[in-house]
């Protein structure tokens, strides 16, 4: 099975360990880098190494950042009394693209999963509770995914935060844009009904 020299095989192997990259894509990427101008490979290697060594978690919200605080937490124009709780840093990107939210975030870095044995202690929940002690927060938006694990996490957090007399909301989940009512399942439809709004 040795079709490649050792170094090429190693490169292909490294690529194929990345999520979403199968052996064929790994091979294509490796061969591309071997024939492209040398700086292409050097730039990629540098970018990876630099990102990996300089990027860490924001001390406040858990987002990726190069300094102690991410660009959102250090932006003085954002409302500090509303925090949107998400599963992963990439959910912040999705939320930011809507341009509809001007508060702060909190990244849990995971979700509660009874079946995977992931409990609240393995998420950044203590950090969230500490944040709530220090600042006058009026609302927490739970923006975990509408999956079983996302629901479990939201339910757990709601139970924890509701006694603090902070408004706890969950992102409405209902019909996706462009969906056909006829094909909607019971749960989606009943959530959409619960989250209905007055139209003017």
């Amino acid at each position, binding site marked *: 099975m040795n079709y490649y020299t050792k170094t090429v095989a190693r490169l292909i192997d490294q690529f194929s360990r990345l999520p979403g990259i199968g052996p064929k894509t790994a091979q294509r990427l490796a061969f591309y880098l071997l024939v492209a101008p040398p700086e292409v490979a050097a730039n990629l290697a540098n970018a990876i190494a630099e990102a990996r060594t300089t990027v860490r978690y924001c001390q406040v919200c858990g987002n990726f950042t190069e300094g102690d605080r991410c660009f959102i937490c250090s932006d003085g124009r954002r409302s500090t009394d509303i925090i949107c709780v998400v599963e992963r840093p990439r959910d912040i990107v999705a939320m930011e693209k809507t341009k509809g939210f001007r508060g702060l975030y909190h990244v849990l870095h995971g979700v*509660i999963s009874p079946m995977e044995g992931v409990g609240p202690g393995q998420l950044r929940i203590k950090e969230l509770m500490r944040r709530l002690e220090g600042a006058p927060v009026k609302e927490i938006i739970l923006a975990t995914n509408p*999956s*079983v694990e996302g629901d479990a996490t939201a339910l*757990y957090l709601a139970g924890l935060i509701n006694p603090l007399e902070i408004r706890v909301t969950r992102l409405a989940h209902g019909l996706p844009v462009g969906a056909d009512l006829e094909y909607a399942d019971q749960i989606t439809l009943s959530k959409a009904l619960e989250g209905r709004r007055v139209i003017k």
Partner: protein
Amino acid sequence: MKLYQVDAIVLRSVECGKGDKLLLLFSRRLGRIKVIAHGVSKPSSRKRGFVQPFTYSKFLIRRGRELDSVSQCEGIAMFPFLRQSLAMISYASYLAELTLALTLEGEKNEPLFQLILETMRLLESGEAEILTRSFEIKAVSLVGYRPVLDICAGCGQGLTRDLFFSAGGGGTLCEVCGLGDQQAFPINKGVVGTLKALLNLPQDRLHQLKVSPAYRRQIRTLLSRYLKYYLERDLKSAAFIDQFIEDIWSHV
């Protein structure tokens, strides 16, 4: 035709990139099967709602070279209440995890299918803890490890006044056998009677059963040891329930 149809409960769904999910299904007709559902993490997917864990759906499945894939599906019962509290999610997860642990791929077991379906359905109104205990003892019996509860599992004699229970011994033991089995622990006749009721009463009649908190604790420990003996491991959702849920239930 390369298509086949099954009614199945989604026991588990695992993200596998590109919006696809690997589903572990427990079907009435074929037992446990593994299929891939393409694109179901995307909001635009029509199948998305029906492939969520703990839903009971009708699947049209396409045979594949490596993995079969979901061609169409339609919900039969979605059990929305199973996702309305952390306790419900945890119990449903446990039923699913235990079913996965007790079965092998492609092994048909229609009574077990019927049992999990009915237990999930009854969780809406029934008592989760009792339903779960009954599920445990019935499920383990349905896969061939029914505990002996009428006689001594060691010597086959009738039970003595002082009796014992041993997972490795296969159930209740008489005084003599019990004292000779290092894993055996003493239990009383009332607990044995409750175990028999949990095993023999249909799920929809369990609400008639009154079990004291002390018996509940003993039965929970006893059944978890019994299951562990056969499964040779702990179940993650059982530990989760112990840590985060049972507290809640003891106040209800």
